[in-house]
């Protein structure tokens, strides 16, 4: 799982560079995200604009990260499109994660 990260104030922006977040990459994704959280990042924007396929294992890993953040943190999504957005809606996960079209609005939402 290839990801890119950068800080914007107190917000960590994590961009998935792979086309797929699936069972193959879910464990690695979870471990990398856990690493960010244990290093002190608790406000995270996940940029999924490069991703064009997510399966239930990928979604499960994201739920797991959200649980790990607990009440004191937040994980919001930006850039989800096409079949990725449809997967969020199909599984009602668009009600669990705050979803934003652009990265800037996602960062702004966490910076409030």
């Amino acid at each position: 799982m290839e990801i890119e990260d950068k800080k914007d104030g107190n917000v960590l922006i994590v961009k998935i560079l792979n086309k797929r977040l699936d069972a193959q990459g879910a464990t690695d994704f979870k471990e990398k995200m856990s690493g960010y959280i244990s290093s002190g990042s608790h406000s995270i924007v996940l940029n999924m604009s490069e991703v064009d396929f997510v399966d239930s294992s990928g979604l499960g890993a994201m739920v797991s990260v959200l649980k790990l953040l607990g009440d004191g943190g937040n994980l919001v999504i930006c850039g989800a499109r096409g079949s990725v957005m449809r997967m969020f809606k199909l599984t009602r996960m668009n009600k669990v994660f705050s979803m934003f079209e652009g990265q800037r609005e996602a960062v702004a939402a966490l910076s409030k």
Partner: protein
Amino acid sequence: MGSKRVKLVIDSDLEQVFLVGMAINKLCSLIPLSDTDSDQIELCVVEAVNNCIEHAYGNEKGQEVEITLTLHPDRLVIDVCDTGKSMEQELVERKDVSALEIDPSELNSIAETGRGLPIIKMIMDSVTYKTESGRNCLTLLKNTSVFGVYKGG
């Protein structure tokens, strides 16, 4: 007009599942399905193959998962088969679309696993599971007549 059939076989390795997903998505363009329908059928096949690898074979590589896609004039049938541990029929029936109902305000009650079969059931028109002579097959059926005319020869 007869049916057309293609069989794909991969090793029980999660790293190979995307190959089947992408091939199925492309084959769906023969029907013709919309891009949305093709993506959703790819998702169902990926979920079914993941189940074979993770549950039937317990993530052990070196086993085969066989995917057979049959295009009929009015329906698409996909068999996803393994020779590993069988699923209990009761579990297959119990994992229905209600498993996708969640309470977003209760994060800890939201499961991290177990959505594969409910997703498949939500998207496909029929889902059946059979074990015969040590071979387990999950059969996914999608009626295609509503999508238009089958373009295959």
